[in-house]
């Protein structure tokens, strides 16, 4: 899903490729890009399941406003992944209600 070459912007200034963990699996993303962008590039659509109806949610506004894309990041729930920069080794977990599902 990454744009390799863009007719107007050409290439995108990106941080180095780093590994991070998504629900225990190792994925790769670019350091400093939003966690949500790295997940989208890796094909992950579902960020959380809601409290009341258990519905899947993902990226919606992508600018930190709607809070739909929140996940458990390094143990903290409700982290807005669309504006939180990715760092190497981050633990990103699908959020169920307000916490990560117990494995």
């Amino acid at each position, binding site marked *: 899903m990454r744009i390799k070459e863009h007719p107007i912007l050409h290439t995108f200034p990106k941080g180095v490729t780093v590994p991070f963990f998504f629900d225990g699996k190792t994925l790769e993303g670019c350091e400093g890009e939003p966690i949500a962008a790295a997940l989208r590039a890796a094909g992950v659509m579902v960020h959380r399941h*809601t409290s*009341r109806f258990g*519905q899947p*949610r993902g990226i*919606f*506004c992508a600018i930190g406003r709607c*809070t*739909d894309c929140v996940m458990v990041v390094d143990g903290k729930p409700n982290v807005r992944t669309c504006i939180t920069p990715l760092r190497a080794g981050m633990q990103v977990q699908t959020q169920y209600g307000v916490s990560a599902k117990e494995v």
Partner: protein
Amino acid sequence: MSKVVERSQDLGPCIPQNDDDLIICRCEEITKGEIRQAVHDGMYNLTEVKRYLRTGMGLCQGQTCSRLVRSIVAKELGISPAELELTSARSPARPIEMQTYSNEVW
């Protein structure tokens, strides 16, 4: 314009609609049907609906749903959405960790 609102007016029965189960407030997962019913329960403005159902009380504080809720409530009351005041805006503009909030610099 008079702001006087008689709360005992007859809105008629709350007839079920086929899209009543649509989620309107994404954060708190409040449905259209619940909002319509709240109006019939006497919640005639956005603040009362909010306090009654939690619409707009979630993590995003109504940034996504406030207009949607307003149009549903207005329609149920048979008035124009512009006649309904939005719920008040309050600090903090974004969710903020208590630790950060407690750490003040003057």
